[in-house]
C-alpha cells in the first residue's frame, strides 16, 4: 500500500463554531459596505447579497496579526475603522503545556484538510513543556542528496525475528493505541479500525474485549491481553495478526486499570462479562507472572494458540525498562512497546501521571542502546508511545532509536477532543468520544470520524516524508537511532571538557 493512494476528503468540524485564536470585533461604526468581505481571502467576513448587514466575523478563519502586512488586511481596509483585531481570551482556556492550543488547533486543521497547516502563526510541531521532545530540533543538512518524494518509503516491518511467523509490514510507522470498549465509544473504536485498514496499519482493542463490529477489520486489529483478562477469549486471539500483552500503562504505571462504575454500562459489562454499574479493576501486574520465565510462558501460550501471530509486549518506563525489554526479547516477543509516563489515559490518578516512571524520551534511548549492546536490536521492533503528539515527535522518537510509534491522544484530538480531561467523570466525554452513554456515544458517525483520522494520518505522513527528504533518505528505516541528526537546545551549544591523562 502506498500512502499516496489514500483518499483525502475535506472533513470539517461537526460543530458550528471553532475555538478561535483571534478575535475580530466589528463596532457600530460599520456601515455594511462589504469592503472587508471582498478583501478577506479566508472568509472571515461575509456579506450575503440582498442582506442589509455584513455577517458577524468568523473569527476562527482569521490568520491573525501576520495579516497586518498584507494588502487585504481588513482592519486597515475598513473605511470606517470599525474593525479591530486582538487575541481571543478564550484561547487561553484551550490546551496546556504538553498539548498547546496551537497544537490542538493544528491537529484539527490536519484532520479537516489532510495536510499540515500553512499558517505561520501556529506552533503546532512542538509543545511548551520545556523538556524532552520540546527541546530537540532537527539538524537538516544544507545540501542533502536529492531524493524524489515518490521514492520515499515510510513502511516498517513488525516481525524482525525470522521465526516463520507472519511478515507484517505497516505502511506508516504509526499505529493506534489501545483504548478499550468502555473507555471509548464504539464509533470511536470502529473508526480507528477502519482508518487502520485504509492505512494498512493497526489499532488496538485495549483491555475491554473485542466488539463484533471490529470483525471486518481483523487483520488490522491488535487484541490486548491485560491483567484483568476482560473479554479475552481464545477465538479473539486466533483472529488477529498481533497480540499485545499489557503489563502497564505509561500514565498509571504499576497501578493497574480502573474503569469507573458509571462507565461500566450495560453493553460494556456484557462484553467484559462483568456486572453493570460496578467499577472494574485490572490488578497490577499479571497474577501469573513473577519473573521473565513466567512472562515467557505467557508468550508461549498465545503463540501456541495462534501459530501465525506476532506478540507485542507493552510496558511502562521504570528505571530498569532496558532489562525488561531484553527480557521480553529472550521470552520471544516480536515487539517491545514502551509507554512513557506522559502518555494519555481514560482515567488515572493525577499523582501517577505526573510522577511515576520516566518520560518516553529517556526510555527510548535507554532501551535502544541496551538492546544494541545485547545484540538483540535487529531482532526486535521497538515501538514508543506516551507523549507522541505530532509528526515531529514521531520523527524525533525514531531518531532516538524507536522503529515506530503508537498514538492515542492525537487520534482523539483529530476527532475533536479538546483534552478537557473529563473522560472518566459521570457519563464520560462531553464530546462523545470517550463515552458509552447512549446519548453521548452518538454524537458523530463513523464515516466522519474515519475520514478525520485518515486525514490526520495523511498530514503526519506528509510531514514525515518531508523530513526524510530533507535528510536525503529513501526510507524511514534509515532514520532509526540517528541521534546525530538531532540537537538539544540545552546541550548542543555547550562543550564539555573531558580530561585525559
Amino acid at each position, binding site marked *: 500500500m502506498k500512502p499516496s493512494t489514500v483518499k483525502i476528503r475535506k472533513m470539517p468540524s461537526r*460543530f458550528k*463554531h471553532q*475555538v478561535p485564536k483571534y478575535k475580530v470585533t466589528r463596532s457600530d461604526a460599520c456601515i455594511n459596505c462589504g469592503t472587508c468581505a471582498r478583501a478577506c481571502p479566508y472568509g472571515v467576513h461575509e456579506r450575503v447579497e440582498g442582506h442589509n448587514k455584513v455577517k458577524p466575523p468568523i473569527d476562527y478563519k482569521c490568520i491573525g496579526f501576520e495579516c497586518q502586512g498584507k494588502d487585504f488586511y481588513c482592519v486597515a481596509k475598513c473605511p470606517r475603522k470599525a474593525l479591530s483585531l486582538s487575541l481571543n*481570551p*478564550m484561547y*487561553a*482556556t484551550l490546551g*496546556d503545556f*504538553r498539548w498547546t492550543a496551537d497544537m490542538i488547533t493544528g491537529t484539527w486543521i490536519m484532520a479537516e484538510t489532510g495536510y499540515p497547516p500553512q499558517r505561520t502563526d501556529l506552533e503546532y510541531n512542538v509543545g511548551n*513543556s*520545556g*523538556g524532552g521532545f520540546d527541546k530537540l530540533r532537527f539538524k537538516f543538512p544544507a545540501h542533502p542528496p536529492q531524493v524524489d518524494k515518490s521514492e520515499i518509503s515510510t513502511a516498517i516491518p513488525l516481525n524482525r525475528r525470522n521465526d516463520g511467523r507472519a511478515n507484517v509490514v505497516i505502511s506508516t510507522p504509526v499505529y493506534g493505541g489501545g483504548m478499550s470498549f468502555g473507555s471509548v465509544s464504539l464509533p470511536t473504536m470502529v473508526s480507528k479500525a477502519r482508518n487502520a485498514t485504509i492505512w494498512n496499519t493497526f489499532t488496538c482493542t485495549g483491555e475491554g474485549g473485542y466488539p463484533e463490529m471490529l470483525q471486518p477489520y481483523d487483520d488490522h486489529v491488535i487484541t490486548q491481553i491485560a491483567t484483568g483478562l476482560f473479554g479475552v477469549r481464545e477465538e479473539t486471539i486466533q483472529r488477529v495478526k498481533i497480540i499485545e500483552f499489557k503489563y*502497564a500503562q505509561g*500514565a498509571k*504505571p*504499576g*497501578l*493497574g486499570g480502573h474503569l469507573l462504575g458509571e462507565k461500566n454500562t450495560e453493553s460494556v459489562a456484557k462484553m467484559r462479562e462483568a456486572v453493570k454499574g460496578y467499577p472494574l479493576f485490572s490488578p*497490577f501486574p499479571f497474577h501469573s507472572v513473577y*519473573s521473565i520465565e513466567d512472562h515467557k510462558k505467557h508468550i508461549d501460550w498465545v503463540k501456541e494458540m495462534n501459530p501465525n501471530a506476532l506478540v507485542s509486549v507493552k510496558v511502562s518506563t*521504570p528505571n530498569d525498562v532496558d532489562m*525488561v525489554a531484553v*527480557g521480553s526479547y529472550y521470552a520471544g516477543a516480536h515487539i517491545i512497546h514502551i509507554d512513557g*509516563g506522559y502518555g494519555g*489515559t*481514560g*482515567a488515572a*490518578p*493525577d*499523582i*501517577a*501521571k*505526573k*510522577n*511515576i*516512571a520516566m*518520560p518516553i*524520551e*529517556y526510555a527510548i*534511548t*535507554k532501551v535502544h542502546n541496551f538492546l544494541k549492546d545485547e545484540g538483540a536490536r535487529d531482532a526486535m521492533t521497538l515501538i514508543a508511545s*506516551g507523549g507522541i503528539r505530532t509528526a515531529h515527535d514521531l520523527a524525533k522518537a525514531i531518531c532516538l532509536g524507536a522503529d515506530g510509534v503508537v498514538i492515542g*491522544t492525537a487520534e482523539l484530538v483529530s476527532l475533536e*477532543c479538546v*483534552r*478537557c480531561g473529563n*473522560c*472518566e*467523570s459521570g457519563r464520560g466525554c*462531553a464530546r462523545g468520544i470517550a463515552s458509552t452513554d447512549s446519548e453521548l456515544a452518538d454524537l458523530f458517525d463513523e464515516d466522519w470520524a474515519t475520514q478525520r483520522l485518515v486525514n490526520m494520518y495523511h498530514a503526519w505522513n506528509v510531514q514525515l516524508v518531508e523530513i526524510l527528504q530533507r535528510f536525503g533518505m529513501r526510507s524511514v528505516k534509515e532514520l532509526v537511532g540517528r*541521534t546525530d541528526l538531532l*540537537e538539544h537546545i540545552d*546541550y*548542543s551549544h555547550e*562543550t*564539555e*571538557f*573531558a*580530561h585525559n*591523562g
Partner: protein
Amino acid sequence: MPKKYHIHPKITPLDLDYVFKFKIVRGENCINCGKCTKVCIYEAHKRRKDDPRKMADPNTVVCRNCFRCIQECPRGALEKSLDKDFTNIGGAFWKPDMLISLWKQAEDGKVPVSGAGYRGPFTGTGFDSMWTDMSEIVRPTRDGIHGREYISTSVDLGRKLNHLTFDADGQLASTVPDTVDLPIPILFDTPADNLSSNVKEALVKAAAEISTCIIMPAADITPRVEKYRDNIIPCLAPTEIDTHKAVLKKARLVSIEYSDAVLNDFPGLKKKIKKLSDALTIIRIPAMNDVEGIVAKLAHSGAEIIHIVADYRGQELNGSAGSDRRLLKDIIRAVHLRLVEDRIRDEITLIASGGIAMAEHVPKAMLCGADLTAIDIPLMIALGARIYEEPEKLLIFPEGLGKIPLPIVTQRIVNLMGAWHSQILEMMGAMGIREARRLRGESGRAIFFEEIDKDTFGKLFKKREAVSV
C-alpha cells in the same frame, strides 16, 4: 495480623466560596434558545427560575472546559476565559490548580483522578524535578494497594542504636531507647498564628483521629485540647522550659526551637527536659545554608529527632532572594548524605517541612532522605484559605470560617489526609515498596531530572573536547 491503618473520609462540602478556573459570559446577542442547556452535561447553563423565557447566568463553578456550549451556540453568544481570581491566586510555587485540587481532596477524601495525559511542564524545580520509579514485573504488590497485602506507612521517631551489644551470657546489654510510632509519615505543623478557635481545635482533633501529632506553640495548649495531649507536640524555646513545666510533663514529644545554646550543649538541655518528663526531643532548625553541619554536630552530641524547616515555598531561609537558595529536596539530600558520610544516619530521625504541598511531596521527601514530613499550609487550603505569594506571602482565610461547626472543619482535614494517604499508597505500590521506612534515602528508586537528562541528552549532544592534563 494487626488492624489495618485506615483513614475514613466522608464527603464534606464547605459552604464557602472558593476559586474556580473558568468563567463564561453570556453576550447580549443570546436569543434564549436553550441550546446550551441541552449540550452541557455538567449543568452550567439553565433557564431562569423566575422567568423561564430567559437564560440564567452561566454557573461556571461546574464548568469542565468541554467547549460544547461555546461551539454549539447558534449565535456564538458565549465567551469563556480563565477566571481572574484563579489566575491571581497562589504564585510560582503554590499553583492555582494545586489549590483547587487540595480543596477538592478535602471535600471528598479521594485520590484526584482525571482523564487524558499529564498536562504540566516536562520538569520543574525541587520535587518537580523527580520522578518515582515503578516495578514492572518483579517486586510489585500482588493484589493491589488495598488488597490483603499490607502496605505500611508507619514511621518511628526517636534515637536508635546502630548496633546491639550482648554480655557474656548472651543477654542484651544495650538499653534500647524509646521511640514514638506514627502510622503515617506526616505531622501537622501550626500553619499560622491567627487561627480561629474552631480551626485550632479541629487541627488537634483531626491529628488525633488519624493518630498523628500536631506541633503547636506551648502557649496555645488550652484546657479544651488537653485531652488530646498524646497528639500534641508542644513547641517552645529552650528558655521557656520552666514556664511550661505542666505541659511538658505529659507530652510524648517536645519540640525545642534551635539556638546556639542548643547546639553547644544538647546533653545539658536533654538532662533538663528529662527531669520534668519522658518526652523525646525534637530540635526545630530553620533550613539555613549551613544546616547540614549543624545537624551533624547535633547528631553526634546525642540529638534524637531533628526537624528542618524551610520557608513556605520549600526554600532555604538565608541567602539572597534568588535562585541560589536551595530547595527542600536538595536540603534534605545534603543533610541525609552528610549523616550517611558521618555514619550516624540510622541513629536519628529527620523531619522535613516547608513547601510540602501535595501528597507526592511526602514520598519524594522520604526518598531524598527524610524519615517523615510536617505540613502546614495545605491544612488551611483544605478549609478554603487562599494563599498569595506576590508581592509577599499572604494567607487569607475565608469569611465565616470561624462559624463553621467543628466536626465539619475536622472532617475536611481528615479527608485531605485520607486522600494523601491513599496517594502515598499508590506511589509505594507502584514502586513495590511495602514499608514506608524503606523509602528513606532510597534514591535509587527515584529518577532525578538533572541526572537522567545529563546521562541521556548530555551524553548525546554535548560536544566533548579532550583536554590533556
